[in-house]
């Protein structure tokens, strides 16, 4: 072996080490609990669910069409939902349309009571007692917030609470892009 090849061989472990470092460094800043939705780019699943205030009124997937909107999955047993509720109220006051999906709540009364005391940012609220529709959406926890375009397609799913930081950094640019009707809109 000549001197240069010998030197090169000696540097192989260093190169491998640096490669591994870069690869693992990325892992430090990624959140493994945040899964991207399998539904992105697809139309929302078909469903029929009662309204939370009046279980005789039924809603279908048609309520998620017509304009870009948020679909917020929430429940009273979910502390993070409580944390984001104020911010949802604020967004609703700014004119952002939000549809609620009440996910496997302890009871309907509790949920209605929550809306009456904390304010109701939702245009309407779907009451998913058994979580069967949430399963169609691939929901695996609460809160989750889907951004849905005017054609009723899922554009993005955010896991965790919606707050000032998330809204300004990720969701608002995407949402405003959808409102302007420009295509394609990406995060």
């Amino acid at each position, binding site marked *: *072996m000549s001197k240069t090849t010998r030197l090169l061989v000696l540097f192989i472990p260093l190169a491998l080490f640096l490669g591994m470092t870069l690869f693992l460094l990325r892992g430090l800043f990624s959140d*493994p*609990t945040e*899964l*991207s*939705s*399998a*539904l992105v780019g697809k139309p929302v699943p078909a469903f029929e669910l009662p309204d939370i205030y009046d279980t005789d009124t039924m809603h279908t997937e048609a309520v998620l069409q017509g304009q870009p909107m948020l679909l917020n999955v929430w429940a009273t047993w979910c502390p993070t939902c409580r944390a984001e509720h104020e911010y949802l109220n604020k967004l609703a006051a700014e004119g952002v349309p939000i549809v609620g999906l009440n996910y*496997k709540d302890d009871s309907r009364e509790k949920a209605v009571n929550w809306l009456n005391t904390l304010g109701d940012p939702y245009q309407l609220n779907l009451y998913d007692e058994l*979580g069967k529709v949430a*399963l*169609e*959406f*691939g929901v*695996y*926890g609460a809160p989750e917030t889907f951004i849905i375009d005017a054609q009723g397609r899922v554009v993005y799913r955010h896991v965790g609470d919606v707050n000032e930081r998330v809204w300004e950094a990720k969701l608002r640019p995407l949402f405003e892009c959808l409102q302007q009707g420009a295509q394609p809109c990406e995060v």
Partner: protein
Amino acid sequence: MRSLMTLVFGLSFMLLSQHATADQREFETAAQQQLYYELINELRCPKCQNQTIADSDAPLAKDLRDRSYDMVMAGQSKQQVIDFMVARYGDFVHYQPPMQWSTSILWLAPLLAIGLGIVVITFMVRSQKQQPVTLSAQEQARLKQLQQGADDDS
């Protein structure tokens, strides 16, 4: 000490028996039962990162077991149930990842490691063989003598 051991044994037995009874289901055929258990041990709970839905006590895992059971009892095949789950929860939900560009490293990495090993070993063996032989002064003289002898013969 002894009573503590008894307590620990007793408690773990209770846990075991509870686990076994938590998910009692009725099946019409043995094939359905086998398919159901195969599925819940191959589907991954989206909420709990590294547990199968059979392992996990999360409410979501129960929902997915219920759905798997319903689908098995409705006569759906294994692939149909898996496709149903993957369509909603993504590839994450299945413990056997599909072969595609982003997952190819799972298949290639072992082959690469073996390949690299072979290359390294070959290099090492070669460099061992090529070590120059140094002769002592005595040996040098003997070598010369032999060479001269050979020259004389020819």
